Each structure stands twice: as C-alpha cells, then as structure tokens.
C-alpha cells in the first residue's frame, strides 16, 4: 500500500455559504438551549444534581404505589392514591421544581447581560420568552406525565382483568393528559414571571416558595373546620351531642351511633369558600377535582379545596385563568420594556 502523499490544508478563513434559517432556527436554538440549561446538560455534574433529584422526587410516589400494588395486588387499588390524586400529591415537589429551576432560565441571561446578544439576532423579545417558556413547560410536562404513566402501568398490570380495567378507566387518559397541560402551564408561567423581576435566582426561588407557603397557610388556616357540633343517635334513639374542638377534626369515633348532623364553624365564617380560593396549591387541585369528577373530602383534600367546592365551578376556573394569565402578561410586558 502506498503511503498517502502529504497534503496541504487551507486553514484560512472561509466565508459561510450554507443555509441561513433565520427566525425559526433562532427560536429552536433558544428552546433547545433552555432545555439543556434546566437539565444541566453540558455544564458539569453539580448542575445536574437538582434536576435529577427533583425528577426522582416526582417519580417516587408513583414507584412506591406501584410496588405496593405489586405486593398486595388489585385490592390495593382501593386505598392507594390513583391518577386523580397523583397531581395533588406531587404538586409540592412541582412547585419546588418551578421555584428553583425556572429562574435558571431567565435570571442568568439578564445578570450576565446576554440578552442584547439575542436581541440583535433574528429574534424578538417575545420569541425569546416563548422559547424559554416552552422549554420549561416541556420539561414539567414530561415530569408530570412520567409519574402518571408509571402509575397507570402499575394499575393496569396488577388488575385481575386488564381489559375490564381499561374499559372502566379509559377516561382517565384524556383527563391525565389535559390536567398535565394545565399543571405544567401553571408551574411554568408563575415562577418565570417572578424570575423576570430579579437577576438573582435565589431571591426568585425564595419568593415563590414563601408566597406558596404563606397563601396556603392563610387559606387553610381560615377555612379549616375549627369547632364542630356533632349530633348522633345511639341504638335506643337517644341523641348525643359531641363537641369537637379545634384541630381535633379527625373522625370522632362513636361506636354504634349514627351521625344525625355535623355542623362546623370556620374562622372565615361564610366567606370561607372565597378565602379558600387564595390557596396556591388549590389553583390546580380544584381544577383537578373537577376534571376527575371527585368530591373533595377530608380524605383527599385540604380545607381550602373543601371550602371552594361549595362555589360554582366558574370560581376555581377563573382563579386558574388569573394565576396563569396575569403572570404571562407581566412577563410579556417586562421583556417588552426591558432597557438595553
């Protein structure tokens, strides 16, 4: 075999003559970069700890439920939380994920002053925001669906008659898909709006978590059934009156007696249903109850959600629209007026 002859490569400057795909390529690049940023791809091990940790945290409940189902079989399906409860169970983790990861997408670009470099390229500030939003939205969506898929798979596989299970529960699929979109929108747009007003990621995260804790505690604290008067009848037909005091609102065990009436007072009084609308976890929990057609009770919901259930459906829907619409407008307005 003959040795290759020496070749001289021209390492001089080459003009670019390839395709230029303009605005759509720019949008796609920002979306892709957003996904990589959140997941910590291409930036060392430490940046991956949080996304991986939070992903595991979101998956854990589903995996645990499936393991339990695997051991005790179909009977477990009666008391293991199902698809209807899953979103409210993981909502705490999702809020933390949003609070920590969403600012990652907007704050560094403004702190490091990268925004002008984007805006002199074939993009507008609205393109930038939409690409960043969609990147985060897509990640949250995958996150919320992943747990549900694992849970569904577990429920189907452990059912004694799988065809029957699917026939009885197929409606859960569109519900899960629809609710996932609503939750991912809420978890994305709010934290991004907060992040738009600070260049410090930690401030944004602290603000979101503080607002969440504060609004939830105010709402739950004012709608909780503080004291109840329970009237029961025993076997002989005599009526007994039991007073339940504050924060002892668990089921008072009254053997062989039938509850005739149960009247409770709440700190917010008649306004309790409206005060319940303040709860941030309620924003999606209330819609979740509507979508999955479940009645909020003390078994599956917090005081705020129980109180809100007394209102017409338009109220929680309106609250959801406000909590997603106003942050979206704030975001858009903020980036339109940004000084460069």
């Amino acid at each position, binding site marked *: 075999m003959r040795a290759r002859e020496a070749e001289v490569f*021209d*390492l*001089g*400057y*080459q*003009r*670019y003559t*390839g*395709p*230029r*795909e*303009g*605005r759509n*390529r*720019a949008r*796609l*690049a*920002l979306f*892709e*970069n957003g996904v990589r940023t959140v997941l910590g791809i*291409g*930036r060392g091990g430490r*940046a991956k700890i949080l996304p991986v940790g939070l992903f595991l945290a979101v998956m854990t409940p589903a995996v645990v439920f499936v393991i339990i189902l695997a051991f005790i079989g179909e009977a477990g399906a009666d008391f293991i939380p199902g698809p209807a409860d899953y979103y409210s169970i993981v909502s705490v983790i999702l809020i933390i994920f949003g609070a920590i990861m969403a600012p990652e997408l907007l704050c*560094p*670009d403004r702190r*490091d*002053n*990268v925004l*002008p*470099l*984007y*805006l*002199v*390229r*074939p*993009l*507008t500030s609205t393109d930038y925001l939409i690409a960043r939003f969609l990147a985060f939205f897509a990640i949250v969506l995958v996150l919320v669906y992943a747990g549900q898929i694992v849970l569904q798979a577990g429920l189907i596989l452990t059912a004694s008659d799988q065809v029957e299970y699917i026939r009885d529960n197929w409606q859960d699929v569109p519900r899960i898909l629809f609710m996932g979109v609503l939750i991912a929108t809420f978890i994305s747009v709010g934290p991004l709006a907060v992040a738009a007003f600070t260049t410090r990621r930690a401030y944004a995260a602290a603000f979101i978590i503080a607002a969440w804790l504060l609004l939830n505690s105010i709402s739950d604290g004012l709608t909780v059934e503080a004291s109840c008067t329970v009237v029961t009848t025993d076997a002989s037909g005599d009526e007994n009156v039991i007073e339940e005091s504050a924060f002892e609102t668990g089921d008072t065990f009254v053997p062989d007696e039938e509850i005739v009436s149960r009247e409770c007072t709440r700190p917010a009084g008649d306004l309790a249903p409206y005060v319940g609308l303040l709860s941030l976890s309620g924003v999606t929990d209330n819609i979740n109850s509507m979508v999955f057609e479940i009645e909020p009770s003390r078994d599956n919901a917090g005081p705020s959600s129980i109180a809100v259930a007394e209102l017409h459906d338009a109220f929680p829907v309106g609250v959801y629209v406000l909590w997603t619409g106003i942050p979206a407008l704030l975001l858009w307005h903020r980036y339109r007026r940004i000084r*460069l």
Partner: protein
Amino acid sequence: MRQTIPRLPLLYTGLVPALLEARNLTKHYGSTVALDGVSFDVHDGVTGLLGPNGAGKSTAMKLFLGLIQPTSGSAMLLGEEPYRSTEGRARIGYMPENECLPKSMTASEFLMHMAQVSGIPPSQARTRAADILRHVGLDEERYRPIGEYSTGMKQRVKLAQAIVHDPVLVLLDEPTAGLDPDGRQEMLRLIHRTANTFGISVMLSTHLMGDIERTADSVIVLESGVLAQEGAVAKLTEETETLLIEVADRHEEFVTALAAKGVQATSDGQMLVIEQAREADYDLIRDAAVESGARIRRLSPERRTLTDIFRSRPA
C-alpha cells in the same frame, strides 16, 4: 489566503444602499439628548466612530441594531429598519461594550449556540464555532467555562460571537476598552484581520484615536451627540499635512517669496512651518527657493496624527 472582496463601484452611484444610514438621527433619554440630528452613511471597509465618553457612540450603535428606537429621524441597517426587520439582523454582528457572556457555558458551546440563534443549522454551527475560535486564538481553552477566562480572552469570545455567523457587517462597541497594551494590540490585529482577511465590514466605536489610525479607513467623529467631522482617515490626515522646512540662509527672503506666491509660512527662527500644505505647494516652494536664493537643508512633510488634528481644533 487573502480573499479579495470587490469594492463595488455601484456603491458610489447610489444604487446600492449604504450598510448603515443615519438621517437626522435623534435620541432623547428623558431630558438628556444623546444624539441630535445626526446624518451619515457607513459603507464597506472599516469605519471608526470616534468621540469622548457620552458623545452618543453606543446610542448610535444600539439604534442601528434596533435595540432602541430613535426619538426622531431614522437609522437604517442594510436598507431596513432594524427594529422592524429580523431578516437584516441575521446578517450583522454586535460586540457590546460591557460584559455579556454567560459564565457557566464553555466558549465552544456558547459560540455554537449563538451561531444557531443567528439562523445557522447545528452541524454547520459546530464547524463555524470551531473555526472562529481558532481564528481568534482560543483553540486550547474552548472547553473551559467562560467564567474562568481572563479579560483579554473574554474580549476575544465577544468578538468571536459577533462574527461566528459570517455577517456582512459587525458593530464593535469599544472593543479595546479595559485591555492591557498587549491585549489591545491583539484586538486591533484581529479587527484588522476581520475586515481585510475575513471580508467583514466593521464599524468600531472608540475614544482612542490610535485605534482608529491602526484600523479604520474612514472616521465619523461625534461630540456631545452631534456630528463633528467625517471622512476618510487618509484624507483627513492628508489635508492637514504640515511641511517643515529648514533653510541654511536667506530666511526672511524665502518667507517673503513664499508669501508672494500665496503660501503662508510661519517661522520659529530655525524652522519654517507650512500648515495644511497641499500637493501644489511643493512647486511653489521650489520656485520660492530659486527666487530668494535660499538653500533648503531639509524639507519634510509631517503627516499629523488624528490626535494632533483634534487637539488643534477649537473646542
């Protein structure tokens, strides 16, 4: 290999729009007037935007880039309004004055990303990023996070991101600011290469005349938001050439003979100085020397630097 970019003769017939075109460009920030009715054109080659801090240089650049909008008048970029057209912006590059780099990204990843945001598909973006980083001398360090870079290296990444998509024109805002003498020389060399080897037209703003002299073909001088002067750098310095003449004897006769021919010479006793000498003056000086019988010992043109020109201009 040097690529010759044809200097379009059409440019001067007005058929091809200027790269940048300012018409009565005015920008107010509240009650502060940053630019006040400025008009000028920028054609291909290297154009210097010269002026002290606060003269309106950065404002002018941001107006051309569409980052801000004019209060009145117009700033056209490649014949389009930059804040309306995203297409024009795909063919220009911008290097801001301030820090503008993401600290946690590597230079390689950042350049690839920026090429794509300029519309270049991923596979070509990868090649462009590697090429440009090599051209600005950041081959070895490209897989390190930018946060760990020195000022000079960051400045080169800033230039690299501005030309990674092979723009027609690149706007450099104070590219030598904050650099040590070596870094400054390196940056000026890169700017020269960008224009002459890469064939990318450059507009650079600076408050240092030396930067303009080293790199620019033409200069636009801004002072307090108004256009103070514009023209080709060579012409500007040529027009104000000073001739120094040393004569052995017949000093006064020589000056008188010159004056008779309409050439004003000032004498400091030893040397004669003729300000703003023109090509034709050489013949007159020769004639005057013959007539007066003065023996010329030395005749030297002193092409003045831009620094001298601006120093002698009334404030």
